[in-house]
């Protein structure tokens, strides 16, 4: 009996028992879908991590205020002065960027918008994760030194292909829709109570292509940190305070030693108070990835369990099929089928059921991954290869055939005379 015929015979049998077959491969398809999704995620995560590391460079540190720390009154907290000191004492650092952020009001003409994310920074902002296109000019050292009231606007990112959720919920806030409609280059805008001149406009890459893992964290408006402190900061008690200082040693090998030096310098300046934390950005990302990896493992476990459950379902169906077809087995034996023929027939039917489940699972998985990729925004998790699909289907048929082996073997050992007597 050749493969084509066996295929047709199997298909006929499955079609004749549609409901039973569908039930039995439901679990298999869930298993395949789950495995597929997990594989896609692993792949997507790996790529996201690599892309981001490449973009970020190897020597990145973030200095933040320590959480839940009560000052003894000796330290002034993290300040712009700290950043200047780091620059001065460690001149080989590639980047030292103090940064503070506030959400405030922007007024242009008659338009007034609240909740605009305004960040104070330095020209070194351009030294990290630079994915933008610039019109006009960026902040420079003169702006920072002279507390110039100049601003760089960051346009909202667009989609190449808008995901379902963004269409459904709408992903534009007030600022986005305002900035989209107006070109403010050269215009004067009021930020909180002070007038700033827009000297540059940054365009972000499309959201689906953005390599940054924290692209949602992009500010709307960037001003010199000094001007920020004077005009936009809200805490008047600590006029020199900054939220964080971002450092890039420029070299992976110097990361550890520079990190120590940074800590020593800051501790000295903070009069012995360790009210700050120095974090390795890569560790941060890797922690996040580790967290995601746990979810992936859960998905994998779910897939395996579902596949096993599906296998048992197939075993059950094979048993039922054989029970209903004992007489057929007798007839086939009488007209010349060997035990091996009978075994092969039922294994093949089970494998076909499994493959059908696998195909359904691939459909389910692809749909699910596409949907989830949409949910995840710019993440490229929809990275399923044909090979993975084929592997999923093959696995489903293999598992099914394996589980069908015992019933099929028993069928092949039936006594033909007894089998022929069955109703």
């Amino acid at each position, binding site marked *: *009996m050749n493969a084509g*015929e066996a295929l047709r015979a199997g298909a006929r049998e499955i079609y004749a028992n549609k409901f039973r077959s569908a039930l039995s491969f439901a679990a298999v398809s869930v298993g395949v879908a789950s495995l597929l999704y997990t594989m896609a995620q692993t792949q997507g995560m790996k790529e996201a991590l690599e892309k981001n590391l490449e973009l970020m460079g190897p020597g990145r540190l973030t200095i933040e205020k320590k959480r839940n720390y009560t000052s003894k009154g000796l330290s002034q907290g993290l300040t712009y002065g700290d950043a200047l000191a780091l620059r001065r004492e460690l001149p080989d650092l590639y980047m030292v960027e103090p940064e503070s952020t506030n959400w405030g009001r922007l007024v242009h003409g008659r338009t007034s918008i609240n909740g605009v994310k305004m960040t104070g920074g330095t020209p070194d902002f351009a030294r990290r994760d630079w994915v933008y296109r610039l019109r006009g000019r960026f902040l420079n050292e003169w702006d920072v030194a002279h507390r110039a009231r100049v601003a760089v606007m960051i346009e909202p990112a667009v989609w190449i292909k808008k995901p379902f959720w963004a269409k459904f919920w709408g992903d534009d806030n007030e600022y986005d829709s305002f900035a989209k409609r107006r070109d403010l280059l050269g215009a004067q805008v009021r930020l909180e109570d002070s007038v700033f001149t827009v000297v540059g406009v940054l365009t972000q890459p499309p959201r689906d292509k953005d390599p940054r893992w924290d692209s949602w964290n992009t500010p709307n408006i960037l001003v010199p940190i000094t001007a920020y402190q004077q005009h936009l900061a809200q805490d008047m008690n600590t006029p020199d305070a900054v939220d964080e200082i971002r450092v890039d040693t420029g070299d992976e090998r110097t990361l550890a030693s520079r990190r120590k030096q940074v800590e020593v310098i800051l501790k000295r300046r903070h009069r012995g108070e360790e009210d700050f934390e120095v974090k390795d950005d890569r560790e941060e990302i890797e922690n996040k990835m580790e967290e995601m990896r746990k979810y992936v493992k859960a998905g994998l476990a779910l897939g395996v369990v579902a596949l096993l459950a599906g296998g048992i379902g197939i075993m059950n169906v094979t048993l039922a099929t054989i029970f209903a077809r004992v007489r057929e087995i*007798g*007839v086939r*034996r009488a*007209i*010349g089928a*060997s035990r091996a023929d009978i075994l092969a027939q039922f294994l093949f039917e089970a494998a076909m059921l499994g493959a059908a489940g696998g195909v359904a699972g691939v459909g389910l998985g692809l749909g699910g991954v596409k949907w989830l990729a949409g949910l995840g925004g710019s993440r490229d998790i929809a990275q399923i290869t044909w090979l993975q699909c084929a592997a999923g289907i093959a696995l489903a048929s293999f598992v099914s055939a394996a589980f069908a082996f015992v019933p099929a073997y028993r069928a092949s050992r039936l006594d033909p*005379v007894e089998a022929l007597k069955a109703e």
Partner: protein
Amino acid sequence: MNSITVDGLTRTYQGGYQALKGVSFAIANSEFVAIMGPSGCGKSTLLNILGLLDRPTGGKYLLEGAETARLSDAEITGLRRARIGFVFQAFNLLPRLSALENVALPMAYAGQGVEERRARARELLTRVGLGRKAENTPLQLSGGERQRVGIARALANKPALLLADEPTGNLDSKSSVEILALFKELNAEGMTVVLVTHDPAIGAAAGRVIRIKDGALA
């Protein structure tokens, strides 16, 4: 050479029931033999052993001069496939397959090519007068037609021996006559035919009748 030689054949079932108590006879090539006897006399058991579906517990069974007792299951299956054709009382066609596919099935197990199989199956169906109904499924055929398909299937691998268990038992008298005529025709062409029957008409048509009673020749 004899087609079948049995010598002192016994068959005892688990639990001790003895269906055959030492049966000896020989059937020559191209003979038409009817095995007759009352229900439960052991004639079906005998036919199953002759058809290599069952094995005797004692005695000798030589098929075309070859001892069958020591053959493995695979060898027995091969022999059954190549040398023996079975016709059943209940036809035993596979309901989801067309007449043509049913007839072609034994050839598939014999490993023949698809085209070859289809051609021969069509030829056989024409031979039994069903050339036009090759694509019908068994449910679309009458009892007599089904038995013709059954006979065509039995002939698929060009066997030397045709075994039939009450082949007319489920048929009306008109169909029975036709089926019997078909058997006689096949026998006239040189086929050895052995059939189990209650029907005295078939017994009368057979060249020889072997009567069995209580597991022994009567």
